[in-house]
């Protein structure tokens, strides 16, 4: 058969066979913990976490320990699930977050007691260990513009509570949800904002600066607070628990690699608040490469000035000087190429898998029409799950990295392909179907030789829709460590680095156009000539 599904499948298979060898090896390590593998160091998606993780990584590398970096994992749950599942070996975490967001316990006592508590519970419940604290605290900081503070005479959160009904807040989604965030804070201070908008970690400082919101949350060592000259309101009722930073280490590393654990422990007690603010300022405001800032910091701590040749997502922020954007992109060409390739792999593999399931499924549904609408509705329901949520669901099942992202993207691709295929074959030229049946085609022959080729344009429309959606959604896969063009976007967002964001977003948009154009050509090949004429005329 020249037309129809066979050709679509073959082409898709060819595309994926071409890219799969590149896709597979990178992540099998995460899938098979029993094999010797590098120490996987992760971070959450904000500057300080990137920096600390990079310091962990370089310190390990200075001792000849191989490291794999997974910067910018979603939020607390994503990073913690990744650590628990063994996909990640260590990441910087804060004791207060461990107590409230992970253990779901009430805040209690001073820093030492909280550390002792999380240490005990994490060991008992999860087999994880907190290394001794790094030496600084990074608690929540509620900030306002300096002029707002002056106008309302705001110095503390109690002051804020009196004028909050006139102010709008932009808070990270994480903060709005968690017990140690907005709900608890509102109770403690009787806070009622005029409005609360969920804003990304990095966007909200800009939103505050531009006047779009009046109050934001953040961390007390955020460099951007100093850059914009915001006023941090004092937590006069001591609502926020202590947030001591420490390396949180997974079971595998504790069991198999005591040397790596010992090396990481060297950082304990070495950092303080002011050091961190300066380092964060360099990363967040001056957009210095994280690798360099980490190297300098380790050097100053006499923990070695390690050369780091490996390209990291953090390295991507090397916003060298004031060169043009094109020159900037050119400077990033190596990592951009790798990220684009990874992006294509994510989209290609998930799309092929989507075609392999959705196409036969939809053709089956044509034969079992009673099951069709319920089945399609379930697939449609998958589309309504927020991308970041579906990505997070994948972590306990598949760890972090390439494959869980592929599974999530695959789930998203099913509905457009199945719906368009089903509608296409169901509504295929009724006169032709009737004649084919009446002249003695079996139902399978009608499906194969009449309905499917006539539905080719509709099937391809579904595949194109799924492909373009996946190119966009795949940018979010960076939050579970899958890489791709989302990596510079996520890092750029975390560091408020517009050029870095654009260096991921523009290629992603371009990729969407190219993928659509390529599939338009495939559509021309798979669509029977007279149907093609009909649309062209």
């Amino acid at each position: 058969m020249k037309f129809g599904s066979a050709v679509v499948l073959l082409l898709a298979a060819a595309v994926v066979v071409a890219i799969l060898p590149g896709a597979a090896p990178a992540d099998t390590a995460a899938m098979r913990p029993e094999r010797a593998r590098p120490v996987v160091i992760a971070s959450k998606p904000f500057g300080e976490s990137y920096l600390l993780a990079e310091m962990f990584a370089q310190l390990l590398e200075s001792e000849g320990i191989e490291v794999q970096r997974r910067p910018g994992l979603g939020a607390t749950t994503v990073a913690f699930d990744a650590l628990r599942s063994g996909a990640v070996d260590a990441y910087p975490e804060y004791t207060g977050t461990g107590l409230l967001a992970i253990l779901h316990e009430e805040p209690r006592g001073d820093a030492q007691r909280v550390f002792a508590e999380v240490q005990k519970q994490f060991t008992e419940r999860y087999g994880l260990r907190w290394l001794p604290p790094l030496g600084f605290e990074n608690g929540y900081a509620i900030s306002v513009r300096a002029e707002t503070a002056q106008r309302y005479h705001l110095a503390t959160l109690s002051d804020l509570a009196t004028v909050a009904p006139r102010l709008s807040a932009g808070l990270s989604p994480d903060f709005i949800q968690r017990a140690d965030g907005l709900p608890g804070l509102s109770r403690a201070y009787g806070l009622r904002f005029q409005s609360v908008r969920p804003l990304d970690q990095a966007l909200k400082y800009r939103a505050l600066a531009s006047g779009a919101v009046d109050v934001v949350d953040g961390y007390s060592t955020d460099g951007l607070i100093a850059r914009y000259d915001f006023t941090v309101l004092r937590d006069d009722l001591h609502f926020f628990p202590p947030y001591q930073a420490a390396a949180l280490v997974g079971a595998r590393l504790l069991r198999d690699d005591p040397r790596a654990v010992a090396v990481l422990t060297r950082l304990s007690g070495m950092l303080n608040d002011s050091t961190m603010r300066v380092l964060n300022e360099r990363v967040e405001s001056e957009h210095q490469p994280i690798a360099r800032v980490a190297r300098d910091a380790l050097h100053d701590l006499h923990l070695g000035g390690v050369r780091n040749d490996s390209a990291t997502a953090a390295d991507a922020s090397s916003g060298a000087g004031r060169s043009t954007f094109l020159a900037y992109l050119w400077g990033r060409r190596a990592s951009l190429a790798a990220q684009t390739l990874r992006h294509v792999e994510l989209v290609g593999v998930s799309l092929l898998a989507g075609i392999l399931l959705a196409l036969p499924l939809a053709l089956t549904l044509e034969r079992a029409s009673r099951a069709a609408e319920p089945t399609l509705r379930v697939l449609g329901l998958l589309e309504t799950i927020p991308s970041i949520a579906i990505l997070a669901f994948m972590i306990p099942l598949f760890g972090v990295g390439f494959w869980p992202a592929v599974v999530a993207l695959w789930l998203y691709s099913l509905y457009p392909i199945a719906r368009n295929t089903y509608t296409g074959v169901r509504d295929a030229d009724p006169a032709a179907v009737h004649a084919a049946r009446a002249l003695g085609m079996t139902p399978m022959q009608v499906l194969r030789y009449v309905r499917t080729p006539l539905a080719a344009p509709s099937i391809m429309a579904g595949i194109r829709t799924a492909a373009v959606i996946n190119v966009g959604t795949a940018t979010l896969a960076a939050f579970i460590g899958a890489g791709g063009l989302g990596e510079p976007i996520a890092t750029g967002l975390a560091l408020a680095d517009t050029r870095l964001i654009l260096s991921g977003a523009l290629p992603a948009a371009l990729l969407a156009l190219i993928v659509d154009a390529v599939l338009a050509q495939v559509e021309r090949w798979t669509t029977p000539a007279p149907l093609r004429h009909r649309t062209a005329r």
Partner: protein
Amino acid sequence: MPAPSLSFENVSKSYGAVHALADVTLSVDSGECLALVGESGSGKTTLLRCINRLVDPDGGMVRIDGRDASALDVIELRRSIGYVPQEGGLLPHWRVSRNVGLVPWLRGAPDAPLRAEEALELVGLPTATFGERWPDELSGGQRHRVAVARALAGGQSLMLLDEPFGALDAITRHDLQRMVAELRARRPLTIVIVTHDIHEAMFLADRVGVLHAGKLEQVATPAVLGAEPATPYVAHLLARAELLRS
């Protein structure tokens, strides 16, 4: 081999509360052309489709050369019967030759292209000119000729015409009617044609069956039908056709 004979024995079919066919008994001789006429909803198309089992009767039996059609393999049965649907029903993504060779190809006949060529000649369309065209590159009349060729390319000697020429202009329709008449002269063919056009029925058929609300009102030769309508409905139908003609 002579063309098959047909018989309907007390054939009934209901769709819910609607009796599409009520106890129809009728026979068609080998080589005969029977026209079924009646208004929309009279049951004429349902009766036709009982022959190639696009419709399965609720009661009664259809026999083809004396054999119970419901006992035959339905796919084989359909491949052995030529069928021309209302709009022609050509597969738009197949070229003319491939459309015509459909049934031989389904049977796995290696000479399908040759059979297609013969059938096209039969309906007056030379393969050299028309074989490689797409259906949408043909005129309405040509499309219907191709549909007739497709119905005969498998060597079928029973042909069902399901309101075949209704959508065509009067001149083209007449050409096609003459073509069907000539086909009958050239090879043994039993034909059942459903039409709402009494003149077409009178012109083509040896006998005409008039259906009304699922019941067979009368079966007779055109001459007898015109001279002695059996029921007031048949008389009414004929009178109206006369009126329409003038």
